[in-house]
């Protein structure tokens, strides 16, 4: 057994070494690069199960990995693709997806175009939220970047126009991205899972639609200070099956829902000086959905913000902390409106999650880190849109407070 483990570790070590060495090569006299990453986490919570895992017992069902290949084809043209896979409790379930795949042509520094499946630029971290190695914390603030809702905004099939415009020495630099396309929920994502876990389960087999928006960020003349604003609009049309809770005798019938309004505004700032990094973001998402085959409506107004700081106290040690604030109000109409009253009091634990977090990150080397993190949460926000806590994962009901220990390790090359 011991011998087998040693063999396995040796093979892993050799594979990593090979990957590290083979990341840059030439093909048809063109530069090609291979890169990849992987992370493994463990979460233990004192009370509520969190993020679709059985965390109250301690869960290591928190794995993700990805690999990409990129090639500079001509002076301006670059192509590439990345595959991503994850298993997060009941989400992902090891179903790989094409994370991004596009061709990118930069005509000028101030104007480029990319088309294909493209990561959606929203705020500081939407397009990089899977890459834990870019941040000190093990988890991004869940009020703005919920792990379970990753699929909602992560990428679109379409195109971006982008560029960087220098404003002169005294005015800094502006970067813009304008995008449009179509986005789809994975069946193994948080939203379809949430619908399957409700008291009136819905099997949502497809959900998606047009997504468009823009991001504008200003690298200010004050060295290290970045501020920005993002706007995203999307229209979803979801189909599946369900048993009408008002008429179970009808059996399983087709289900449809669609959004009348779905938009997101995000404002953000980042300041870095030496070993210090400070981030802050505010995101508001408003969703108005017509559901249950047109018999009901639901409105959700989700507001999340956070303030975070991290400091590299030694060459290989970073310490960080953040406060993440999530609050949601909901209104229902039609049949749902008769069954569920509006939820507008955000001081109730069912409508908010206030999360105080402390983190430590140790860089074992340039490619490998280990993180330890403590979360001290008040509220569980079990509204109609996923936010980490699901009634189906907590059949005995919710406790108002949750403390969590997160251990995560990640590799990248």
């Amino acid at each position, binding site marked *: 057994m011991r011998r087998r483990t040693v063999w396995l570790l040796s093979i892993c070590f050799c594979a990593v070494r090979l990957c590290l060495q083979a990341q840059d090569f030439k093909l048809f006299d063109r530069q090609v690069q291979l890169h990849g990453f992987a992370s493994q986490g463990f979460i233990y919570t004192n009370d509520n199960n969190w993020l679709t895992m059985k965390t109250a017992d301690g869960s290591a069902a928190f794995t993700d990995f990805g690999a990409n290949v990129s090639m500079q084809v001509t002076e301006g043209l670059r192509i590439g*693709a990345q595959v991503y896979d994850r298993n997060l409790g009941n989400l992902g379930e090891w179903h790989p997806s094409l994370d991004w795949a596009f061709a990118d042509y930069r005509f000028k520094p101030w104007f480029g175009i990319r088309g294909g499946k493209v990561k959606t630029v929203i705020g500081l971290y939407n397009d990089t939220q899977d890459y834990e190695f870019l941040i000190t914390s093990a988890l991004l603030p869940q009020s703005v970047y919920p792990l379970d809702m990753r699929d909602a905004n992560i990428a679109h099939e379409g195109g971006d126009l982008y560029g960087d415009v220098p404003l002169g020495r005294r005015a800094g630099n502006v970067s813009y991205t304008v995008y449009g396309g179509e986005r789809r929920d994975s069946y193994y994502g948080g939203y379809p899972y949430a619908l399957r876990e409700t008291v009136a389960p819905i099997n949502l087999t497809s959900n998606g639609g047009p997504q468009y928006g823009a991001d504008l960020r200003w690298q200010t003349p004050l060295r290290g200070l970045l501020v920005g604003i993002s706007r995203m609009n999307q229209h979803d049309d979801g189909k599946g099956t369900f048993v009408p809770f008002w008429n179970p005798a009808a059996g399983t019938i087709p289900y449809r829902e669609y959004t009348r309004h779905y938009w997101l505004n995000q404002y953000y700032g980042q300041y870095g000086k030496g*070993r210090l990094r400070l981030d802050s973001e505010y995101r508001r998402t408003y969703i108005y959905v017509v559901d249950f085959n047109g018999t009901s409506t639901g409105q959700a107004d989700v507001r999340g913000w956070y303030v975070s700081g991290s400091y590299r106290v030694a060459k290989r040690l970073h310490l960080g902390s953040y406060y993440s604030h999530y609050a949601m109000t909901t209104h229902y109409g039609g049949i749902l409106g008769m069954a569920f009253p509006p939820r507008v009091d955000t001081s109730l634990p069912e409508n908010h999650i206030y999360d105080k977090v402390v983190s430590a990150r140790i860089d074992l080397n340039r490619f490998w880190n280990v993180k330890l993190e403590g979360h001290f949460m008040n509220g569980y926000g079990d509204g109609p849109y996923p936010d980490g806590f699901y009634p189906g994962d907590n059949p005995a009901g919710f406790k108002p407070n949750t403390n969590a220990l997160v251990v995560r390790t990640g590799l990248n090359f």
Partner: protein
Amino acid sequence: MKNQRSLPLVAAVVMFGSIHAMAGNVKIIANPSVKIESISVSEIKSVFLEERNSLHDGTRVEPVLSKGGPAHESFLKEYLDKNNDALQDYYRTLVFTGKGLMPKALRSDEEVAAYVAKTRGAIGYVSSTAPVDGVKTLTVYQFASDGARKLISRVEPAYPMILLSNHIGGTVRVKVTIASNGTVEDVELIGGNPILAEAAMAAVKKWVYAAGRSRTQAEISIPFDASR
């Protein structure tokens, strides 16, 4: 006798030169295939941040970095406004969102210089005192106002023989005031070896820029490469 007399001067210059190196100045080097002789600070920044992969004259370039050391730290501070952690995160963001490639990073000035010398379009940086062969050293300028002016006529500074024979190099930084008709009105020393500065300022006074609507100012770094 002449050499003996110059020894104290050389010693002073050597001392000044070492202080200068400690201050962390770098020189920008390029493969001889790169046609330009001078480059702006903002152009260097946009090349190394992969916002552009060609220079203003259309030459395709490939940025080459150092993995660490004083030259690398100086370069980050003077040209990129980022520390090394922030720069590595920036490149990883590009790589993992498909928006760029990881640039080549080498261990030492010698490796950077050797790679730049053999790679068409390569552009890199080494410490200002590092010997470099087979590459060209670019003059770096930065306009104080937004109106960049094209350099039409350039006079190369005469390398003081006493320093050249003692293999003493460095970079001189000056601020020039350019009249609207394109002539250089004034040259002010910002930093550098005083003997090299005298030669650099004398040459820059003879430079001619394209005419502009008004008087403009620019900061220029002029490298003196003792290994040439």
